[in-house]
């Protein structure tokens, strides 16, 4: 990729992040279309494999864009896809955070916080359901799910051990 391609990629990612309300997975179709269909800089298989691989990386789910960028053009590619994530965070979010701290008892701030909390929790249940249905193929997967929920709620076990156990169960072909 030359400098003009990288610049175009940067601007495209910037526009996508500003509409990424609801999280990084909402813009997957937009990025896929741009890289695979419009610019044709990677194949569909590459896109999917890199996306899946990035889920094993620590950090926010959004890091798949960093891996896509790295694959395209090394550090420069990573900068072109990752820096745009920061722009809405450092403008809109800082402003919202500032207003929330400055006027914590404004009726509108109270109403927004009180009103949205249940919506967020409902969406979290929804994400968990969608993910669980996508990854569980039979009763053994659901058994692992129930076991995980039980252990995390009842015991103060570090969940990293559970993730490691999940990885081993996967390699052994149990789930």
């Amino acid at each position: 990729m030359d400098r003009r391609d990288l610049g175009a990629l940067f601007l495209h990612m910037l526009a996508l992040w500003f509409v990424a309300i609801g999280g990084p997975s909402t813009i997957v179709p937009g990025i896929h279309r741009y890289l695979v269909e419009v610019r044709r800089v990677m194949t569909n298989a590459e896109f999917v494999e890199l996306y899946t691989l990035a889920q094993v990386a620590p950090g926010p789910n959004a890091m798949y864009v960093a891996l896509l960028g790295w694959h395209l053009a090394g550090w420069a590619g990573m900068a072109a896809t990752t820096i745009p994530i920061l722009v809405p965070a450092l403008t809109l979010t800082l402003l919202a955070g500032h207003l929330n701290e400055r006027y914590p008892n404004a009726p509108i701030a109270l109403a927004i916080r009180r009103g949205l909390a249940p919506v967020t929790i409902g969406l979290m249940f929804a994400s968990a359901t969608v993910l669980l249905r996508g990854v569980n193929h039979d009763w053994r997967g659901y058994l692992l799910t129930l076991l995980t929920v039980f252990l995390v709620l009842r015991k103060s076990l570090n969940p990293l051990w559970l993730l490691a156990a999940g990885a081993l169960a996967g390699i052994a072909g149990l789930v």
Partner: protein
Amino acid sequence: MRPNSDPSRISRFALFLAFSRISLSSFGGAMFWARRELVERQRWLTDREFVELLSLGQLLPGPNVLNLTVMVGYRFGGWKGAAAGIAGFLGWPCLVVAGMGVLYQQYGALPEVQRALAGMSIVAAALLLTNAIKLSAALPRRWQPWLFVLLAFVFVGVLRWPLIWVVAGLSPWAVWINRKESD
């Protein structure tokens, strides 16, 4: 919410470390680990404050835990605190991802890796479920908030409507109903 006069400032280094820890433990999503670190380990936020800031982050564009990072960093350390939080939260994954990019180009996608990933995804999804269960314990015991939990869950989780429309449809209503609520 904590009163504004509260002088509790947290050092930028502590913010950097806390968000580094969140980031480096976050396999399959950061939300579970953010709650564990900020609410359970550091006790910087209550469950209720956590879910309120997260909701605000959800309403804004971008990854919601990144938005949470910015708001928590800003609350405890001004804009420099926000920058310290972001550095911890995004810096390490960038290095890891670069390493993965190299490995991917060398070896492609190994079947063992794919299977391990499948097992980890189940646990990661279950962790998200426990988070939702823990956070819902902080909701008031009235029917109205639970109605919104149910509606958001059914629209997105069962009917699979696009998230953006559900949020756009439910949020104004939820905020409007709460305009005169006080604790």
